C-alpha cells in the first residue's frame, strides 16, 4: 500500500514527465515541424554523409563550380527540376529566403537538361545560385542522402561542410525560416 505522500510524488513525477516529454517531442524529436500537419520526411541520420561532401557541378554557363568554395558559410542545396511542380512552387520562397538571409548561400541544383533549365529561369528568374546536377555521376542528390530519388530534396550544409539537415519534399510553412534562422 502506498501512502498519500507517495501518491503525490507519483503525480508530480507524472506531470514532470509529461512536460518533459512534450518539450522533447517539440524541440528535439521534431525540430523542423512547427506546424505538424504534414509529415516532414527527414532522411535517417545514418543515410547522411558524416564527412564533408564536396562536389564540382557546372553552372548555367557550363563553368565548373566547387561546392567547397562556400565553406565557412551555411549552404542550402535545393535539388529540383522543371518537370517537378512542387519544386517550382517553392522556388519563389527560396528567392525570398536568400534575400532575407544573405549569410546563408542558397544553391539550386537542377536535375534536368541545361536547356530546359535555362529557358525556365529566363521566364521565372530566381535570386540564388544555380548549378546543373543531371550529368554528374554519382547522382549528387543520392550522394546527399536522397534515397527515394524524388524531388524536391533539400540539404542544409554547416560551415564545416557537414550535412546538418535534409528533407525530401517541399518545405512546410515556416520550416525554411526555421532551417535558415540563427
Amino acid at each position, binding site marked *: *500500500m*502506498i501512502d498519500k505522500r*507517495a*501518491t503525490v510524488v*507519483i*503525480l508530480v*513525477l*507524472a506531470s514532470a*514527465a*509529461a512536460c*518533459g*516529454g*512534450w518539450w*522533447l*517531442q517539440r524541440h528535439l*524529436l*521534431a525540430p523542423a515541424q512547427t506546424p505538424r*500537419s*504534414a*509529415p*516532414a*520526411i*527527414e*532522411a*535517417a541520420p545514418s543515410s547522411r554523409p558524416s564527412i564533408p561532401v564536396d562536389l564540382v557541378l557546372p553552372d548555367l554557363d557550363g563553368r565548373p563550380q566547387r561546392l567547397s568554395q562556400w565553406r565557412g558559410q551555411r549552404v542550402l542545396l535545393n535539388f529540383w*527540376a522543371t*518537370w*517537378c*511542380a*512542387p*519544386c*517550382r*512552387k517553392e522556388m519563389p520562397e527560396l528567392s525570398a529566403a536568400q534575400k532575407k538571409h544573405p549569410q546563408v548561400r542558397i544553391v539550386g541544383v537542377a*536535375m534536368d537538361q541545361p536547356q530546359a533549365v535555362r529557358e525556365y529561369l529566363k521566364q521565372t528568374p530566381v535570386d540564388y545560385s544555380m548549378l546543373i546536377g*543531371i*550529368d554528374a*555521376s*554519382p*547522382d549528387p542528390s*543520392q550522394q546527399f542522402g536522397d*534515397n*527515394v*530519388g*524524388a*524531388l*524536391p530534396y533539400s540539404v542544409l550544409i554547416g560551415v564545416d561542410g557537414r550535412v546538418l539537415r535534409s528533407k*525530401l*519534399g*517541399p518545405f*512546410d510553412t515556416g520550416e525554411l525560416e526555421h532551417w535558415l534562422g540563427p
Partner: protein
Amino acid sequence: MGPVLSKDFLSLFSQPRRDRALWGLLLAVLAWPAAGGALDSASEQALLKAADAFRLSAQIVRPGLLRLHWSIAPHYYLYRDRIHVDFSDAGIRAEPIRLPAGQELHDPYLGHVEIYRDALDASIMYAVAGAHPSNLRVSVTSQGCHEIDPKICYPPSTQILELPLGTVSGADAAIVLPTTRESGATNPLAALQRMRAIPRPPAFQPVGSIEQVQRAVAEAAAADRPVLLDFDAEKCGGCESLETQTFAEPAVRDALEGFVLLRADVTADDTAGRALLRRYGLARPPAVLLFGSNGKERRDLRLLGFEAPADFLHRLRKASP
C-alpha cells in the same frame, strides 16, 4: 540501481488497484514521447521509391501482343505523356503504345495534364522480323508524382523487361530488370534488389461439363475446401483483366491457396459449355462462382465481370472465413 528498479516494478503488481493505476499513468506518460518518436519514424518510411510506387508488370498475351500493367500505389499518379516504350532489338517492329484516356488534372505549374491513378493497362502490338530472338527485350519509361503532402515528383525511370518469346503465356520467367534514373548513374546493387518475377495467375483445373463441375465440387467438400469456378473465354475483355490483374496479384494468389480452382472455358460455344452456363443462369463470361466448403454455391458472392484485387480479396474472405 537495476535490482532496486526491478523490485519496485515487480511490486507494482501486488499493490491495490488505485496505486497500480497511478503507476500505470506514470509509465504511460513516460512512454508517450517515445511513441511520438515512433510515429515520426513511421512517416519517414512513407514515401516509396519509384519502382514500388509504380509497379510494372508485363505479359505477352499472345504472340504479337504485349500487355503492360502498372499497379499504382494510393496517392501516387503517372503522367500519360511521359510513358515511352522502346524495343532494343532491331528485329522487333512495334506500333505505338496504346494508352487509355487518363484523368484530367489541372496543375498550376504544368497546365492541363492527363494522369493515371490506381492502375494502368496498356498494350503494344509488335512483330518479329528476321531472326527470332529468344527474348523480347523492352524498356519502359514512366514518370509520376506523390500527390499529397509531402508532394514530390520522380525523375523519369526506365525499367527493362525481358520476356521469353515462344511461350504463349510468356508469364513463366519474365523478369523486371533494373530500374534506373534515365539520366543519372545506376546503383547496381539497388537494381538487383528491385528485380522480381512478374506476377503469375494460379493454375486452374479445367472443367467442361455440369457433371465434371459437380464431381469436383463434391470432392472439394469432402476435403473441406471451398471452390472457385471461373467462366472464361477467349476474346472476353473482362476475363483477361481478371486473369492478369486480379488472379495474378500475389495477395489474391495467397488467398486462393485453400481453394480448389476450376475453370470452364466456354470459347467453343458448344452444347456442354452452353449447358454449363445455363445451369448457373449465366449469359456469358466473365463470371466467378464461389462455393463454400459445404459444396453449396454462395450466390451472394457471385462476381459477374471484372473486379480489382482489393475488392476481390474481400469477396474471397467472405467465402472462406
